[in-house]
């Protein structure tokens, strides 16, 4: 393979950079790994990176360090993760992640993350869902924020480091990291061979649209919870970048798997998360035994309380995985009408109690203050005294861009292989919540911070090796390619600015979110899914008659930006709903009352979706495929939709029994 002469400079003398989109944990980790490999980076982010959605992660990060002498190990972590995910995750990447977890937590510790400590000065670990072990390292109840800050600091340091050329001489004016904050990735640049050569991005302060070359592009742009409107997600989690890549031809996998978190605060603008760590530290879920209970939660005696999770799942109790806990809460409130009774409205609210009032105040303060503070600030009640009232909320996107992996002989990953985290578009990589790889049908709590960091650690070296072996740098591709892509996106944006129809884009989003939330989350019925799909088509149709709320040019324009996001969300909604409609089984977060069993014979496979643009006037469609076929560095790769279950053999989940999640773990 003909490698270019310099890895730093293009033939025309420009510094060859890689593009990373997204400044959350996954993106920042990728940037750090690229810099350490000597690769200069352009880092794009919708918001200043320190404000990325990773800050919302509360409870902690999993790593089987086994400091409590319980017999935990990365092997048990692997087993419990794939069992929790109902066996839909490819196991080699999960194994590699679980094996690396202790060293990842140690790295964070060295970066200065203020993890809680044991009396001996070691890292403290707490319990989380789907396991009986103390496996979760934590910094109070704002772990995601603390991890993001640590990585943000390291990347800031790289912003001050000069690029060195192949002879080790400083390149004047060029730093290893160039941050483009308040820039939104709106499209990809691909060449005639279909290789990704960069992105088109929009400066959100001026709305000017510019194409940027990148030897490779990594999307670390998170999930798409805002498709469902109010969720635990940040307002920026529309999945718009993933949708753009999907529309450009990238395969989107397992779209139908959306995690609903059991405990969030109901709210009008957002459903604020109450971390699983609250239950990990001993918080208990209950409803009054009397459905017309008039007393306030704290006044209901022990005998009047139904601890329904503990009763039904004596093994894991309040720490059953999220898919199961959410379904139980939903059943209790929605089907049995046993939610907390509201004297004012005289009906049972969709709320259950999450109670920490029996726990010592000092423990709560040291380990959970960050999350209890959120409850207190937004509800106006003191959770140290009154049981909190919570209900499930859309939380995490298990599906995402399909990414490849290179399996090693020992069942782990071949580190540094350019196949790892590669999407079906050559030169385009994805990691973090934006990819589909690590969680199967249901993510275990405290595995998301881990998978973000791990995927970033894999993506950096994968891109470095891709870049080393690429025949021609993106920085040597004729500029006409970029000009064309720039014009294409400018035209699209001008079209949005010119929309003067009668449909309000915010109302359309509310309607989309409402149908997705009500009929495409915890319980899915085929007849209602058909209605959801019809509604999506209706919204798609109406979205062509939008009136843009702001048509000003040359300055920050959130109205026009929202129209773009809405359209991209409609397209992802279709992938989610169609995936759900097709999958006639129940697995993890995907539950169909008509098909309650997991059906491995038909459905132990990855859903692979490709965008089909509708001919003029017609709706867009989805093409579901049984394999992904792509070409990487001149080699054709074909990956079928089979799930690699070679390490832990699939078996039915039985969380009623303690230790069921791992053959090696009896608790």
């Amino acid at each position, binding site marked *: 393979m003909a490698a270019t002469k310099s890895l730093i400079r293009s033939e025309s003398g420009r510094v060859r950079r890689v593009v990373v989109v997204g400044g959350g944990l996954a993106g920042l980790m990728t940037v750090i*790994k690229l810099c350490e490999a000597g690769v200069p980076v352009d880092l794009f982010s919708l918001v200043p990176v320190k404000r990325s959605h990773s*800050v919302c992660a509360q409870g902690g990060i999993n790593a089987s360090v086994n400091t409590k002498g319980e017999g935990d190990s990365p092997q048990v972590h692997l087993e419990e993760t794939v069992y929790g995910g109902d066996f839909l995750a490819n196991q080699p990447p999960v194994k590699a992640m679980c094996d690396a977890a202790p060293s990842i937590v140690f790295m964070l510790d060295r970066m200065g993350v203020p993890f809680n400590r044991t009396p001996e000065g070691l890292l403290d670990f707490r319990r989380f869902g789907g396991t009986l072990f103390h496996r979760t390292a934590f910094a109070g109840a704002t772990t995601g924020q603390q991890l993001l800050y640590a990585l943000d600091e390291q990347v*800031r340091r790289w912003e001050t480091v000069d690029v060195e050329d192949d002879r080790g001489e400083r390149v004047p004016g060029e730093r290893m990291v160039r941050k483009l904050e308040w820039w939104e990735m709106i499209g990809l640049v691909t060449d005639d061979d279909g290789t990704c050569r960069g992105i088109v991005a929009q400066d959100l302060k001026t709305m000017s649209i510019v194409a940027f070359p990148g030897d490779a592009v990594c999307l670390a742009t998170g999930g798409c919870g805002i498709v469902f409107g109010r969720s635990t997600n940040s307002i920026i989690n529309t999945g718009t970048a993933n949708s753009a890549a999907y529309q450009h031809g990238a395969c989107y996998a397992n779209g139908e798997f959306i995690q609903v978190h059991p405990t969030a605060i109901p709210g009008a603008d957002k459903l604020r998360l109450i971390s699983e760590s609250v239950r990990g530290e001993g918080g208990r879920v209950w409803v009054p035994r009397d459905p017309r209970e008039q007393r306030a939660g704290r006044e209901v005696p022990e005998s009047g309380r139904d601890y329904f999770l503990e009763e039904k799942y004596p093994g894991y109790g309040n720490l059953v995985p999220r898919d199961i806990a959410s379904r139980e809460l939903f059943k209790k409130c929605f089907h049995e009408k046993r939610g907390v009774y509201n004297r004012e409205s005289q009906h049972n609210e969709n709320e259950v109690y999450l109670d920490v009032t029996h726990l010592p105040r000092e423990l709560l303060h*040291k380990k959970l203050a960050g999350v209890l503070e959120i409850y207190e600030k937004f*509800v106006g009640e003191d959770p140290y005294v009154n049981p909190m009232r919570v209900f499930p909320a859309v939380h995490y996107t298990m599906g995402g861009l399909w990414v490849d992996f290179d399996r090693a002989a020992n069942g782990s990953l071949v580190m540094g292989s350019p196949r790892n985290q590669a999407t079906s578009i050559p030169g385009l990589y994805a990691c973090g919540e934006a990819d589909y790889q690590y969680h199967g049908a249901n993510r275990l709590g405290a595995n998301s911070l881990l998978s973000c960091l791990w995927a970033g650690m894999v993506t950096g070296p994968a891109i470095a090796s891709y870049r080393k072996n690429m025949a021609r740098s993106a920085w040597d591709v004729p500029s006409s390619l970029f000009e064309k892509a720039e014009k294409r996106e400018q035209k699209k944006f001008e079209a949005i600015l010119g929309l003067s129809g009668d449909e*309000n884009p915010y109302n359309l989003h509310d309607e989309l979110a409402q149908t997705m939330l009500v009929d495409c989350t915890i319980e899915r019925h085929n007849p209602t899914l058909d209605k959801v799909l019809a509604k999506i088509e209706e919204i798609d149709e109406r979205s062509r008659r939008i009136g843009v709320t702001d048509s000003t040019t040359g300055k920050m324009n*959130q109205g026009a930006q929202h129209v773009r996001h809405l359209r991209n969300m409609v397209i992802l909604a279709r992938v989610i709903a169609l995936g759900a409609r097709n999958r006639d089984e129940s697995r993890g977060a995907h539950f169909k009352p008509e098909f309650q069993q997991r059906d491995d014979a038909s459905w132990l496979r990855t859903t692979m979706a490709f965008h089909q643009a509708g001919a003029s006037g017609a709706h867009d469609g989805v093409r579901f495929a049984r394999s992904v076929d792509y070409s990487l560095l001149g080699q054709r790769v074909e990956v079928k939709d089979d799930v690699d279950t070679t390490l832990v053999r699939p078996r039915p989940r039985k969380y009623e029994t303690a230790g069921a999640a791992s053959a090696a773990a009896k608790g």
Partner: protein
Amino acid sequence: MADDRRSRTIALKVKRQDGPGQPGYWHEFAVPWHPRMNVISALMEIQKNPVTTSGQKVTPVVWECVCLEEVCGSCTMRINGRVRQSCSALVDAIGRGDAPIVLEPMSKFPVVRDLVVDRSRMFEDLKRVKAWINLDGSHELGPGPRQSPESQEQTYPLSRCMTCGCCLEACPQVSASSDFIGPAALSQVRLFNLHPSGKMHASERLEAVMGEGGVEGCGKAQNCVEVCPKEIPLVDSIASVGRAATKHMLLGWLLK
């Protein structure tokens, strides 16, 4: 009574500015009230249907928000004259009878549009004070230094700074005519100088805040602690960094 409240509207008076360096002007809006309503929900209503109380259709109000739970720092603005996050500003708690809720952008940073300001200077200041651990690399190097639970309890609150800008906004010493770095970055100096590895480079950070625009610029008004949403002990941080800087200066001078 509950029904009365449900049909009630909330009045907002919003300072508008079309772009950087442009003149400001005011618009008033009325939006329907709902329980547990915060300022962001009110702004979302305006965004959907940007019509003023006098019936004028205007461009939607532009503001910044991300997490909506007061951990990202984005949605900071002046609300009824006081700087704070708009997500945690509950309408029922901040209302003043029939008087409108007044929203203005922070005044110590350049306005981008309406309520959005550019806080880049704060991130640049973090570079100046080298607010990071000098990591050898992200490869496997074993666990970090052991630390007592007490030291974690001291550093964790300092580490919760969201770079939201409240402390700079409230500080009388931070202004267009002064180059005072402000409380946030100074507190980060303290944070990293407390860390067992960060400490090894303490003098670099101290030197960055000695002299012009540094820790000496603090006028001890103590407004910063008053407005910090995370109750970070900023005054203690400034005092501690000030003492360390003085000591460093004297010792450094003696050693020369």
